[in-house]
């Protein structure tokens, strides 16, 4: 498989915008031209060549050897191919991505997967606030694709999410799925206060009780549906679960009745 490798020379002295470095934007670009692409956000204007040693040729994959919390916008807007970061990233990783896969081996900053509409973004570490959420002024958060956070997510994961799947595997902060329009948000591990705050439609799957449950969610009793195996199978096939989560004894809460009230929190048995 052809591709480029960017090896980080040293910790960047300023925040970087890595959104120009996607397989689509670099297609057909020669290495010498790539090295001239400006990434720095200050007046110093650091370019690729100042920060990375570049090897390989433009192709389907891009690998960043090393990472930094100053790596902003990794894979933003990408529509295909593969990006792997061997470390941490900053804000807006995979922002508005429409296809392809991004794997971040470290942790991500806020707004990871913000507004993504397709593809798969996986963060091995933790993610900051507003994972999958909209940027300031935008009406909707993620509208498709799969966002997996294997560590912990910050506050308001899945804010204003419209469609797609967001999975957090090691707990999250407060107001997960706040203002959600639709979609599916899975939280394994403890969620913070009031998940589903002002959620209109959509599904929150929890494996244990959150720190507090919003009083505007009402319990509708034990939930037994042919939909459970469908979602279990999908989560297993995507490597999110190892065993089915929704079994007999799942409890369903409807809400948020402070707004439309057509969403739900599914609390796994024993949770």
């Amino acid at each position, binding site marked *: 498989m052809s591709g480029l490798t960017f090896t980080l020379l040293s910790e960047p002295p300023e925040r970087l915008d890595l959104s120009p470095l996607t397989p689509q934007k670099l297609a057909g670009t020669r290495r010498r031209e790539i090295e001239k692409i400006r990434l720095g956000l200050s007046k110093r204007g650091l370019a690729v060549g100042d920060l990375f040693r570049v090897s390989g040729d433009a192709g389907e994959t891009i690998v960043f050897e090393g990472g930094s919390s100053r790596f902003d916008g990794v894979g933003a807007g990408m529509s295909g191919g593969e990006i792997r970061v061997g470390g941490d990233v900053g804000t807006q990783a995979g922002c508005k991505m429409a296809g392809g896969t991004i794997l971040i081996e470290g942790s991500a900053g806020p707004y990871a997967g913000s507004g993504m509409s397709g593809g798969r973004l996986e963060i091995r570490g933790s993610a900051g606030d507003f994972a999958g959420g909209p940027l300031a002024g935008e009406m909707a958060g993620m509208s498709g694709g799969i966002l997996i956070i294997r560590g912990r997510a910050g506050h308001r994961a899945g804010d204003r999410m419209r469609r797609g799947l967001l999975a957090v595997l090691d707990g999250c902060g407060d107001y997960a799925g706040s203002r959600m329009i*639709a979609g*599916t948000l899975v939280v394994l591990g403890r969620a913070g206060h009031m998940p589903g705050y002002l959620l209109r439609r959509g599904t929150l799957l929890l494996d244990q009780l959150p720190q507090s449950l919003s009083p505007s969610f009402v319990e509708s009793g034990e939930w037994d*549906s*042919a*939909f459970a*195996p*469908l*979602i279990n199978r999908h989560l297993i096939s995507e490597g999110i679960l190892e065993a089915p989560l929704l079994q007999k004894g799942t409890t369903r809460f409807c809400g948020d009745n402070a707004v439309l009230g*057509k969403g*739900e929190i599914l609390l796994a048995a024993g949770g």
Partner: protein
Amino acid sequence: MQSMTVNGVLIDDTFAEAFGMRATAIIVTAPTRKWALEAARSMTGFATSVIGCGCEAGIDVELSPSETPDGRPGCRILIFAVSTDELQKQLLKRVGQCILTSPGSACFAGLEGIEPLKLGSALRYFGDGWQISKKIGDRHYWRIPVMDGEFVCEATTGLTKSAVGGGNLLFLARSHEQALAVAEAAAETMSKIEGVILPFPGGVVRSGSKVGSKYKGMTASTNDAYAPTLRGQVESALDADVNAVLEIVIDGETSEVVAAAMAAGLRTAIELGPERGALRISAGNYGGKLGKFQYHLKDLLP
């Protein structure tokens, strides 16, 4: 008509004439095999012929829990109609009245077709605003609240235009018992072929028809040439020793599976022999002018 003899059974040198049809498939599941079959039988009931039923439908195969999308017992149902509009209409009526209503059922697409047919995306209105749309991966489902929980139904299923309806075999026997024996045996082997259904009761039809009638407004009437009681009065196709004829009609997803099913039926009937089953095997056609597909018996012999 020339014929040949295989294992003592006369095989007419003729062909079955069949028509291009529109078809779709769905997978129905339920908490138990019993209820999957109840739902499927109800939905495919009164679906023997497009002439009077609007569609022809049947259970293609039973599916074990490991073969269904939701891990419950189920079956795959095939539905055939003459036009896409009629197929869509019949599909929604039948799923709405027979699958939606059946305890614990769920309904999924059974065919990746050239274009979608509405399934849950139309039935969802039963939810009266409480229906829930869910997309999992690249599939779209509707969850409709009902009295025993939720009816889960995939939004659409697929349409195929390469389906074939009207493949057939005629078994001519000395007695009704022998005709029934060969028809039953053939229907059993033929229904095992995947992608075909035998739409008539138990796969067997006794009232084969000819085109036209002496009565105004009747488009089809009894096939007098094959009716043993009319021998002597009409131009009969039956020899003196034939006293009962039964037919098997085959609809298939493709022409290949129809041919495979006919070949399987022929083999079974020939193996049964003239003493226990058919003296003679024939097929129905309209002179080759009406149907797009022709299945010559001599090409299908074992």
